[in-house]
């Protein structure tokens, strides 16, 4: 990896060219000395301190760490939900760390598919409409939108329940709707934050099996978890502690449950 100093000295054009190169090299996520610092009173809290990571297209990576380790903050930065205090972040060749709100929104829409622990579905909308939502913000015409949403639901075996509202679905079904929604815009990465946290063990396994299938279909998956069992489903685990990368290792294969 090139040193941050070297990257920081690059002109905008060179930064753009570097992004281009990263993309051509199949690197979807690349951070250089990424920091997120919060000010609490007169104290500076470094939630993320100088993280350098690289994730390639098609990888299945888990970001793991105990509570308060900074993994959620890192996920927010990777998911473009937040901007770093310092450092550079390339997502699919684009310099996301320099983007304005509107550009970040576009990036989230096009490049990232989120799966949350608590599903985060719109309570008053049907499964179909929930899945259509990213397509609405992408400006997809309604007919195509409905068709693609239906296809996404079919891919998670939920087409028959597409007109149901979240409160008419089980926890596993809700999470599958959320996964369909994350997939519908064909994002560069699927970012899952504790996707089994709100599910029972059996349902959790079902969901992880689904991720496994999605990965084998060629999707890039980043899983954020504090559970080692879940992290083992990934092919690579990045251990975070105190805002820093403690360990970046391949998971032993085929030991997945």
């Amino acid at each position, binding site marked *: 990896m090139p040193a941050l100093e070297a990257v920081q000295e690059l002109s905008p054009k060179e930064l753009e060219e570097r992004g281009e190169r990263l993309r051509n090299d199949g690197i979807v996520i690349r951070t250089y000395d990424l920091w997120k610092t919060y000010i609490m009173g007169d104290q500076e809290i470094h939630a993320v301190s100088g993280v350098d990571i690289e994730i390639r297209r098609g990888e299945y990576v888990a970001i793991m760490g105990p509570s308060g380790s900074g993994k959620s903050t890192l996920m*927010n930065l990777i*998911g473009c*939900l*937040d901007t770093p205090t310092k450092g550079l972040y390339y997502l699919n060749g684009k310099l996301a760390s320099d983007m304005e*709100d*509107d550009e970040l*929104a*576009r990036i*989230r*829409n*096009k490049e990232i598919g*989120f799966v*949350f622990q608590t599903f*985060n*579905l*719109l*309570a*008053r909308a049907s499964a179909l409409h929930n899945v259509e*939502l*990213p397509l609405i*913000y*992408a400006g997809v015409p309604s007919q195509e939108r409905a068709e693609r949403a239906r296809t996404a639901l079919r891919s998670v075996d939920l087409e028959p329940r597409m007109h149901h509202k979240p409160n008419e679905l089980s926890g596993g079904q809700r999470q599958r709707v959320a996964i369909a*929604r994350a997939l519908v*815009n064909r994002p560069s990465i699927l970012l899952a934050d504790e996707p089994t946290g709100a599910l029972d063990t059996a349902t959790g396994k079902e969901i992880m099996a689904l991720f496994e299938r999605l990965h084998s279909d060629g999707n890039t998956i980043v899983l954020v978890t504090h559970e080692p069992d879940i992290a083992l489903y990934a092919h690579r685990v990045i251990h975070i502690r105190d805002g820093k990368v403690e360990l970046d290792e391949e998971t032993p294969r085929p030991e997945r449950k």
Partner: protein
Amino acid sequence: MHSFFQDLKYAVRTLLKRPLFTSVALTSLALGIAVNATVFSWVDRILLRPLPGVINAGEIVALKTVAPNGDLLDSSYLDFKDFQKQATTLSAVIAFKQRPLYLGDVATGERVWSEMVSGNFFDVLGVRPIRGRTFSAEEQNSRPGSPATAVLSETLWRGYFRSDPDILGRKIELNRHPFTVIGIVPSAFQGTVNGLRFDLWVPLTMVSELTGSFYWPDDRNARPLDLMARLKPNTSLKQAQAEVQTIASRLALEYPDTNRYLSAAVMPIADSPAGAQRILGRLLKVLLVIAAAVLLIVCANLGNLLLVRATMRTKEFGIRASLGASPRRIAQQLFTETLVLAVGGTALGLLASAWMVHAVEFFVPPTDLPLANLAHGFHGLDLLFTCALGFLAAIFCGIAPALQLFRHGIQEALREGGRFSSPAARSRILRSGLVVFELSLALFALIGSGLFIRSFQNARNAYPGFEPEGVLLAGIDLSQAHLSKPQRVTFFQRLRDQLTSLPGARSASLSEHVPLGFDNGAWEEIRIEGYIPKAGENMKLWRDIVSPGYFATLKIPLAAGRDFNERDSSASQPVAIVNETFVKRFLPEPPALGRKFLLWDREFTIIGVARDIKYQRLNEGPMPYFYLPLAQAYSSDMGIAVEVRTASRPDTFAEVLRSRIRSADPNVLISVTIPFASFMSASYFAQRVGAHLLTVLGVISLLLAILGLYGVMAYSTTQRTGEIGIRMALGAQPAQVLQLVMREGMGLCLIGIALGLIPSLVLARLAASALYGVGNHDGWIYFAGALILSAAALLATWLPARRAAHIEPTKALHWE
């Protein structure tokens, strides 16, 4: 009872803990109650208790002579006597006529508005003197020449006579004639013309002594008297109506020369054409409706606030429920809090109202009429009304949260108290409904004010057929001048000549009546040569008596013929000028000039045709009208107005005019000097009051409704923070979030507008008679109302929408 006091203590404590919520709630409630209490106090004074100080005033009715065309006219003294004698459904009838009298001598005297009354006046009205007595049985049957007695108001006694303890039996001078004071009536009694206040009462039979006129009470054709009657117990208005019609028919047969085609009618005082209710009645009803709308907006707002609080307190209610409190018990607690707010709001509202009732005084145009104080303070009924409003407001406001509690249950609230909970979603629908209700009422109030603003503009800019700008008016009273009738006529001529020759005066004239004042003028029954009236046709036409130069001074164009001149004297052939409608209606075959009509047994020849003007009201239709020359038709009991067209601003000419009149005869009293344009504002008094007060109510409604919309949108946005976070995570841009929230707010606004248009159209129809020149072509008022509401709603929605659009997605996703 114990639990109530417990709840009361807890409610006060809870409200004190939330000073912002409590002050917003109390202020808006106080405002709504103050507005309603104020308007109701005016309604009470003008429409419900038009005769303060009168015992069982509900039994008193107005008795009017009815012209064949339905016009309600005053009556003659002899007709009064006949009604008094023959009516069995009426316990008694009274007669009265108002005019100013001069108390004391000219130099130091006081002009006192008085009523010349029938002897039974006080007995019938049930007004008891605080000192002395009212008219005795002997005085009640008095004829000319009987002892001259006077009754004073408490106000006059305390003011002018400085509470003189020896006032009874004291001789006072009224229009230079000695009268003996026999009693003082309480200040609560103000006389019998609604909206006016009189301070002195003398027997009607003293009319000749006081005015120098002939004794018209003996003339059945002289109809200057207002009549009122007291219904007998258990007699309906309908029965009395039937009887007075029968009596009028009998009189028409018995006295065909004077009473043919005339009928009679009784009506509640609130419907009588004499008094403030004629001008303000319809407007007050509109104000009452709009004020009610303001209170409903306040209640909806407060209901919304309480609903939000109740939603936020579901956890607290759940804990209470788990400790054994029933939904009923918790609803009682909620209701007690609302009741405390209502009591506080009512008390504050009453305080504010005591100040607000004076608002109407700002709009009273300059006039020499003795206008009564409409800000009369609060009476039992007003207080009862206000307290009832407060109580109803409490029920209305408290019902929404209590309803929610009962419908969804506390356990459910506790169970689902988190985000996206179903009770929250249900209460959102209720809150949105309340806001739609508020917005529709605000549009209703805005359109109401728009209609009256337009009406006021129309009235103020209306061309009345003459040019009031640049004319100064003065009222003069010759009752103190020692002048015979011919001398008075000569005095008028001399005064006019002197005024015309004054530097700065362009022309001058004198007349009995002035158009577009509070006073309608006088009418006469005439017979027109060559015109055969249709059966029942009203030939009683309004008229004025004017000097030469009147048309030139007021710039009333003459369509044909000539103006009066100095040669039109009592010795010459009687002449008249008629208006165009007179010609169209009675003399359609030209020429009109030279034609004659019969009046007072004299034949008047038409020498000119004047263009129509507005005589009594700006919204009156064309009416036949005629003018007679002052020199030929003057009567000693007439009041006279002087009109001077000036080169400069008329008000700067007032002192010159006054000194010139005084120098012409120091005994001639000047009642008032006022620019015609100001005087004329009486003709659009109701429009002016309406425009101003309704604008205030419209603005209040708008602000409250917008505050309500803002509150709901702000709360709803907060509630939807999580949802907004999800949308942002999925790629919604700030502009799209802004659009999402604004679409919701503006959707509510549009529904409110659609619903508000319906009552607004009904209001326009009901208020049509109080509006001037407002019609179908004024659809823009509705559009403007909707536009103003939309613009304000846009702002109210934009603020929370903007906040939502700038929420950080990470915070929004983790919002609880």
